[in-house]
């Protein structure tokens, strides 16, 4: 059995807003979501900027922000999928739904850690389940309970590749007939003292504190690291046959998925882009398409010195002479790096823009790095009439994932 798999619902929580129309509009306008960190007082840290979600406006508040983001995005995806045709719960009676979610690590709260070391345990007013650290898997179970997803959930922790892996795994499960429908995507927030300090310690983040909106500069000669973001992106996925039967709106078809290891360095990608190339090639093979059929790539595009030229090189190796015909952009230039949620939110960006015939720009690309010599859609959105789109996500530690999606014009 091999079913065609489509996306029929999208739920997002992003630094550029949580509604699809607004998100797309701001992406196409080239809006940066960067600003000073307000979640905590970062005044004395080397990096004091990030792209934050307006968490106060969310209907759910949790101590660990990524859990609220995940719950809200899952609800939005289901609501969106239910907005056309027969509702998911009605169409899929029984035990058929599942969840595949990429999620960040359970980073402890520093105030709680100090309290724990001084006093030994939680005070009476603390919730013992969330004191010190909230286990990340809690988010998965709450989403499953809320939406009665009775198939065993898949939790992905492959860092920056996690949500792309989650969507790819869901695609395979539905394609192979092992799940009827799924929620898939990712959620993360590392905008907290230990998260920001940890990335500062390894010099991974931009320090352009005086110009936050210029800070995320993928493929630019003057890039100095990634801008930290946060958020969630979750998709409702089902077979095309079921989507048609229940009269659902189809955003896109997931056509192929591949992942790979670099087996190279702990913090630097393989210099020849071997792992990245393998993941992309596997995704194309899985989709049974040729490189010449790709019209656009939403890049991992972090804005770090190491990633951008290697990703460029890997894309050139994949596409050969066809590279000159392909546009490549980086959503991170506007929303920052959402770590475990990055792949899902960037896929949402790519799909929602392409569905209206556009690819969004890569902003802050003012002086293109000579080692990055593709068409990155600098500054201004561009019309597209392509059919097959590629999404790349490359994780710290050499875990690479790629998705091929078909978005009919």
């Amino acid at each position: 059995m091999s079913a065609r798999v489509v996306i029929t619902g999208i739920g997002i929580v992003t630094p550029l807003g949580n509604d699809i129309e607004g998100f797309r509009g701001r992406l196409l306008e080239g809006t940066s979501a960067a600003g000073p960190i307000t979640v905590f007082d970062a005044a004395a840290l080397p990096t004091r900027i990030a792209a934050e979600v307006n968490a106060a406006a969310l209907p759910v508040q949790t101590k660990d922000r990524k859990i609220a983001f995940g719950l809200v995005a899952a609800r939005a995806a289901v609501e969106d999928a239910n907005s056309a045709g027969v509702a998911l719960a009605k169409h899929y009676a029984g035990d058929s739904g599942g969840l595949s979610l990429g999620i960040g690590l359970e980073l402890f709260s520093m105030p709680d850690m100090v309290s724990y070391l001084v006093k030994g345990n939680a005070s009476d007013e603390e919730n013992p389940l969330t004191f010190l650290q909230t286990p990340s898997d809690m988010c998965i179970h709450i989403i499953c309970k809320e939406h009665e997803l009775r198939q065993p959930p898949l939790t992905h922790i492959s860092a920056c590749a996690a949500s792309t892996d989650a969507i790819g795994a869901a695609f395979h499960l539905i394609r192979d007939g092992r799940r009827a429908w799924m929620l898939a995507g990712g959620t993360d927030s590392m905008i907290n003292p230990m998260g920001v300090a940890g990335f500062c310690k390894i010099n991974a983040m931009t320090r352009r504190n005086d110009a936050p909106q210029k800070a995320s500069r993928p493929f630019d000669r003057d890039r100095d690291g990634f801008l930290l973001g946060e958020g969630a992106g979750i998709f409702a996925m089902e077979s095309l046959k079921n989507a048609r039967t229940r009269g659902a709106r189809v955003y896109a078809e997931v056509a192929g998925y591949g992942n790979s290891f670099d087996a190279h360095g702990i913090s630097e990608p393989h210099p020849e882009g071997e792992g990245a190339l393998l993941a992309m090639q596997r995704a194309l093979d899985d989709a049974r398409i040729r490189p010449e059929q790709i019209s656009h790539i939403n890049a991992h595009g972090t804005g770090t010195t190491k990633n951008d030229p290697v990703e460029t090189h890997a894309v050139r190796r994949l596409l050969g002479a066809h590279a000159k015909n392909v546009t490549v952009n980086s959503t991170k230039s506007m929303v920052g790096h959402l770590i475990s949620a990055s792949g899902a939110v960037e896929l949402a960006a790519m799909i929602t823009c392409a569905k209206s015939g556009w690819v969004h720009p890569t902003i802050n690309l003012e002086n293109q790095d000579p080692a990055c010599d593709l068409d990155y859609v600098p500054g201004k959105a561009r019309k597209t009439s392509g059919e097959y789109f590629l999404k790349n996500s490359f994780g710290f530690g050499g875990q690479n994932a790629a998705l091929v999606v078909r978005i009919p014009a």
Partner: protein
Amino acid sequence: MDTRTETGIPDPIVVTGLGSIVRGLTAPMPSADADTALDVGPWLKSRKMRKFMGKQDMLATIAAGLAIRDARLEEAWLKERTGVYMSVGYIPFERSDIEPIARASTKEGRFSMDLFSTAGFEQANPLLTFRCLPNMPIFHVSLNYGICGPYFVTYPGVGQFYVALEQAVTALRNGEVDAALVGAAADQANFLVRHHFARLPHSVNTVFADAGAFICLEKRSTAESRSATVKAELLDYAVHYEPFDPRESVVPFQEEINVSGKRKPADAMGYLGPTSLPVSLDCAHSAGEGGELQHSTQTMDGFRTASRWRLS
């Protein structure tokens, strides 16, 4: 519910390599070496990588190395046609890494962001980032054994190990890989992990073990083509899940292991977290036990899992 019967399928999934390392048990175990120090050095391509490794990374690297060696898999064979499917335990920041940061960030018994940004930040070891990330165990496995194949990395317990097992079996059946390293690593002597279990309404076993364990799975035809020794055969497995809200209810952990109809007391094994099935398989094989191994669990996070293996 996912239940898959492997019995009767023409080309069964077999185990060709097993490796496990367990620390912290009070009861002796037949195979997994409870006394072995975590000497990961011999397993590393570059000993310089040792400083980047947390305990889970070392447990995973050693256990995977043992399984690969047991399966007699060469690196050239491993490279692109081997997948790695694993579950890690709860994220174990080391107290020795965290305490100096917290102490330096404390003012009048409370956290001070001013102090954290200065004195606390100075105390933070840059290597901490590498040692705590949950995807690092699978990175070290891929790096040290030259594996570029597909992967699935999840957390934190037995239920997720079975999900990884299912992903591996499917990849083998679909021809995506020729071999699948399926394993787990859990640092459970860790103070944060202990804190987590202590706050749950139902305690698990009182003995928490640090453990890493891997099995190498192949289709029988693949194993035979390279003259590998078959140690066990997967007969069937099941992974069931009941959604629950962890803020409201947690069910007690239960585990049962039977070898040839004889029940093995799970308490004697200690709480092995996600490693319990591969450790059980390794122990049964090393003890020379034949017949059938049955493993079943009800986890605290809504999973009910079971599997049957024919021991060679």
